[in-house]
């Protein structure tokens, strides 16, 4: 590594040594284990069990969680660096990991009590059990506070009734963080509670796999709760504080999702640069054409901006500072950036990019959801505006 001049202000853009190794290790893993099977995952709509096992042995499922529970404790910056590298593989892998680490188990990690965490976090960190995050409902997408799933106290526990939909990994997860209304009169201000729910328990049904535009290999489905009993000690945080838990978790989720955008866009840029140098038209490589050069230049510039905002926000998160506005900005910008970059990559690849073989058309289809899930980009703008106009 190059020697770095530390500025008098202490500003230093160099990744810590262990994160450099983390980044390199995950890149190697992606190149050797994940990228070669990306087309197979797309065709079969399944990630092979052997690959999930390999991800588990590497320790991916416990990345952001505390070492005391068996996690790797890489911090928010480390987690973003990891997801950036994973973003180079097919989106199926980052969705599997994201549903579990970024939001599903993250809610428990952030707001769960010590006993609940001690019971469940070790198996989640080891990847022996998988988690998902169940907030969205048919009638409550962007308007998340409008959820209708009810949890009613009955003896020593709660009885859950309602339907969650578009739940990533809902088909394979063992547990879900489920948000339900405990006090209809109070709504988002004290009326919603987060529950840690065993999806293999009675009263829980999983709907059929949704048929999607992309993200093959990662599945979403409905989770249907009919008189599902949840023990009272499975409340995450306190009764009525669920909406805060959801927002806090989504701050984390948005930041790490943006990190994945940076990695996938970087990979598209690299593929585009290589293709532009090699593809000959009008007697010379298309990289000689200014039209192509300008596209590459814009792609690189946008990626540069995106990566810096992700790292900066992660740094802020690691310092324990509030970063809700930044998370919304980062999610909004990076997802739009990734969609734009993959569109340009496809344009540079021309007809070849439209064919299955290059993997560009897959990335193109996979990218579109980025501006929608974990809060649409319109909702991100509302969050940013609200922070700006606060007080």
């Amino acid at each position, binding site marked *: 590594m190059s020697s770095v001049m530390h500025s008098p202000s202490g500003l230093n853009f160099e990744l810590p040594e*262990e994160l450099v*190794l983390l980044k390199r290790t*995950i890149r190697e893993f992606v190149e050797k284990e994940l990228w070669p099977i990306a087309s197979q995952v797309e065709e079969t709509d399944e990630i092979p069990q052997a690959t999930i096992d390999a991800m588990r042995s590497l320790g991916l499922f416990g990345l952001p969680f505390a070492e005391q529970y068996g996690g790797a404790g890489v911090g928010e910056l480390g987690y973003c660096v990891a997801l950036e590298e994973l973003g180079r593989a097919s989106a199926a892998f980052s969705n599997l990991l994201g549903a579990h680490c970024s939001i599903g188990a993250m809610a428990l990690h952030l707001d769960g009590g010590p006993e609940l965490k001690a019971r469940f976090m070790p198996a989640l960190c080891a990847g022996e059990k998988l988690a998902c995050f169940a907030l969205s409902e048919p009638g409550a997408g962007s308007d998340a506070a409008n959820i209708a799933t009810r949890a009613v106290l009955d003896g020593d526990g709660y009885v859950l009734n309602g339907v969650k939909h578009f739940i990533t990994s809902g088909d394979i997860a063992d547990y879900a963080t489920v948000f339900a209304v405990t006090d209809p009169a109070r709504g988002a201000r004290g009326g919603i509670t987060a529950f840690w729910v065993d999806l293999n328990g009675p009263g829980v049904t999983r709907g059929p796999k949704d048929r999607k535009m992309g993200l093959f290999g990662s599945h979403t489905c409905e989770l249907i709760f009919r008189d599902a009993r949840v023990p009272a000690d499975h409340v995450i945080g306190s009764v009525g504080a669920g909406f805060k838990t959801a927002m806090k978790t989504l701050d984390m989720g948005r930041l790490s999702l943006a990190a994945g955008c940076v990695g996938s866009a970087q990979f598209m840029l690299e593929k585009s640069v290589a293709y532009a140098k090699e593809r000959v038209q009008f007697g010379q490589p298309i990289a000689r054409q200014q039209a192509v050069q300008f596209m590459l230049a814009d792609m690189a510039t946008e990626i540069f901006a995106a990566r810096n905002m992700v790292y900066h926000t992660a740094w802020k998160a690691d310092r324990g500072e509030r970063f809700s506005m930044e998370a919304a900005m980062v999610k909004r910008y990076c997802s739009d950036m990734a969609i734009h970059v993959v569109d340009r990559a496809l344009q540079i690849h021309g007809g070849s990019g439209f064919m299955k073989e290059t993997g560009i058309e897959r990335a193109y289809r996979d990218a579109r959801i980025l501006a929608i899930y974990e809060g649409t980009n319109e909702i991100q703008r509302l969050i940013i505006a609200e922070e700006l106009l606060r007080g």
Partner: protein
Amino acid sequence: MKIVVTVKHVPDTNAEKVLDPQTKRLNRSAVENVLNPFDEYAIEEALRLRDASPDTTRVTIASIAPRSGLEILRKALAMGADDAVLLSDDAIAGSDTMATAYLLALLLRHIGCDLVLSGTQSTDALNGIVPAALAELLGVPCLTFAKKLMVEGNSVEIQRETEDGYARVRAPMPALVSVTKGINEPRYPTLKGIMGAKKKEIRTLSLTDIGADPTRVGAAGSKTVVESFAAAGARAKGTVITATDPREGARRIFDFLIERKAL
């Protein structure tokens, strides 16, 4: 049992390597440096021995490198090694294989060990001399090209890879064993291991610490000198055989190979 694995940091094997015309040495700053891939097999083998008897075995990584070599030691620690020692001194630059072996011998005497494991060679110079030279200078048995390794009591036994099979070789410890690529599949450092590695100790030693004679190291202390170097000549263009009948084409390729005694 104390196992020491000797490792080297080498230019990324995928990178294009450039020789500096002035120093006639490899330009190591132009490319990213990585842990010598051959050494990863030695580390893996050491870790397997340690994992089989974790309470009584300790794996130490030893290397001679500039300070930037710390990075590869961290990788070895992230894979699971217990600690590491780095011999780093500006005066070492330019040392040839014998000078390197001399330093490694002093370093290993300084830290002490029962079993030394190494790769068969490094991917940069591909000399493959250091393991044997090191064993000689340490005065211990040298078991090379192990494709299988077993420790029993105070002795080590290997299957030494040969062209048409293997030879069983046994020696009392302390001993040095160089391992081949076939011996195992090195593990990835786990992500937990990577984060844990920063808490493990890396001792940095200088020439004075190990009592090295400064006249025996560096370019001045080396017996070999690179006089000159030249680029390998471009390969001659191959012969293209065109035939309309596949049998005829195959026949002509067959004759071509016979003529060159390739078959």
